[in-house]
C-alpha cells in the first residue's frame, strides 16, 4: 500500500536556502501539500507553535541557535504545543558520537547529507509507519531510544527500578 501524504503537514527549518528548496521539491513530489519553512531556529519555533506540523525536518548546523538546541526547546519547553512531534535531523555529520548526541537530545530520525530522494522517503515512511512510545523523565525527553530489545540483557532496569514510578499514558484517546 502507498502512503497518502496529502493531509500531512511538514515544517522545514534550515538556514541553507538551496538545500531547503531541494527538500521542499522532493516532498512536493511525494505528495505533501502543506509545507512551511523557516530559516532560523527562532523562526522555526515560532512557526512550530503556530502551525503545529505533523513532522519537522531540522538542519543541525544553524547559527546562532543550532538544530539540537531547537529540538531541546520543542521537547522540553513548558510552552511547547506538541513535544512529541517527530523530528528528522538533517546533517552532514554521521559519526557515532554525533548520532548519539542527536538521539539523546530527542530526535526521531537522522537524515545524512548528501541525501537521495530514497533516503528522504525512508525517513518519512519510518516516522509514519513506526511511531514510537514517547518518554518523559528528568534525564530524557523524546521518542523511546530502545528500538531493539536484547533478549540476553541482564543489566540494571533503569526505567522500572524499585525507586521509579512509571506512568503509562495513551494519547490516542
Amino acid at each position, binding site marked *: 500500500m502507498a502512503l497518502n501524504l496529502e493531509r500531512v503537514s511538514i515544517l522545514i527549518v534550515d538556514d541553507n536556502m538551496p538545500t531547503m528548496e531541494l527538500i521542499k521539491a522532493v516532498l512536493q513530489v511525494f505528495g505533501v501539500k502543506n509545507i512551511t519553512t523557516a530559516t532560523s531556529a527562532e523562526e522555526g519555533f515560532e512557526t512550530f507553535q503556530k502551525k503545529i506540523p505533523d513532522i519537522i525536518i531540522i538542519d543541525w548546523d544553524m547559527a546562532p541557535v543550532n538544530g539540537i538546541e531547537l529540538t531541546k526547546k520543542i521537547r522540553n*519547553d513548558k510552552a511547547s504545543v506538541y513535544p512529541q512531534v517527530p523530528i528528522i535531523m538533517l546533517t552532514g*555529520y554521521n559519526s557515532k558520537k554525533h548520532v548519539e548526541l542527536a538521539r539523546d537530545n530527542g530526535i526521531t530520525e537522522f537524515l545524512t547529507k548528501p541525501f537521495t*530522494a530514497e533516503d528522504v522517503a525512508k525517513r518519512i*515512511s519510518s516516522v509514519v509507519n513506526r511511531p514510537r*512510545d514517547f*518518554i518523559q523523565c*528528568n534525564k530524557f525527553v523524546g521518542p523511546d531510544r530502545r528500538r531493539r530489545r536484547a533478549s540476553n540483557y541482564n543489566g540494571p532496569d533503569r526505567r522500572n527500578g524499585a525507586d521509579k514510578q512509571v506512568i503509562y499514558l495513551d494519547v490516542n484517546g
Partner: protein
Amino acid sequence: MQRNTDSNTVYISKADQALRNKAGTGEIPVEKIRLSQKQIDQNNVDFQPIAEIYLERLSQALQNARQNMDAPADRLLGALEKPVMNLKSNGALFGYPLISDIATNMLRFIETRSKVDEDLLDIIQLYLDSQNIIINQKIKGTGGSVGLQIQDELQNACRRYISKLKA
C-alpha cells in the same frame, strides 16, 4: 503536554497514531521517489559561491589552528570539521560528488583525531588546496582520473600520518 519530571517518575506515552491515521501505512511509491530524485539531479544551483564560503571558513580555521596550537584540541578540531562537513553535505547535492566523496574521507579522518599538530594541519591544507582546484576548474561529476588521483593522494597522506602516529 509537558509533564513534571521529578527524578523518580517516568512517563511513557503510547505511540501517537495521529500521523498513521492521516497518511495510512505503506511506502512512498517508487515512481514518486524516481521523479523526486530527478529534481535533485537536475537542480541548477550554482555551487561555486556556496563552496567558496566553506573553503574560506576552512582556511580561517586552519590559520587559527596554526596560531593557537595550545588551544583545546576539541575546539580546534571542531572548527576544522564544520566546513568540511558542509562541503560533504552540499557537494553531491549540487553537482559536485567529488567534493562530497573527498570531504567524507577527510571528515572521518578529522573526527578520529584527538590532537592537533603541524602534520595534521598540512594534510588539511592539502585537502583545502585540492578542493579549491576542483571548484575553480569546475570539475563536476566524479572528476574521472584527476578525481581518483586527488582522492588517492589525500588518502595516502592520511595513512602516512596515522602510521607515523602509531610508530
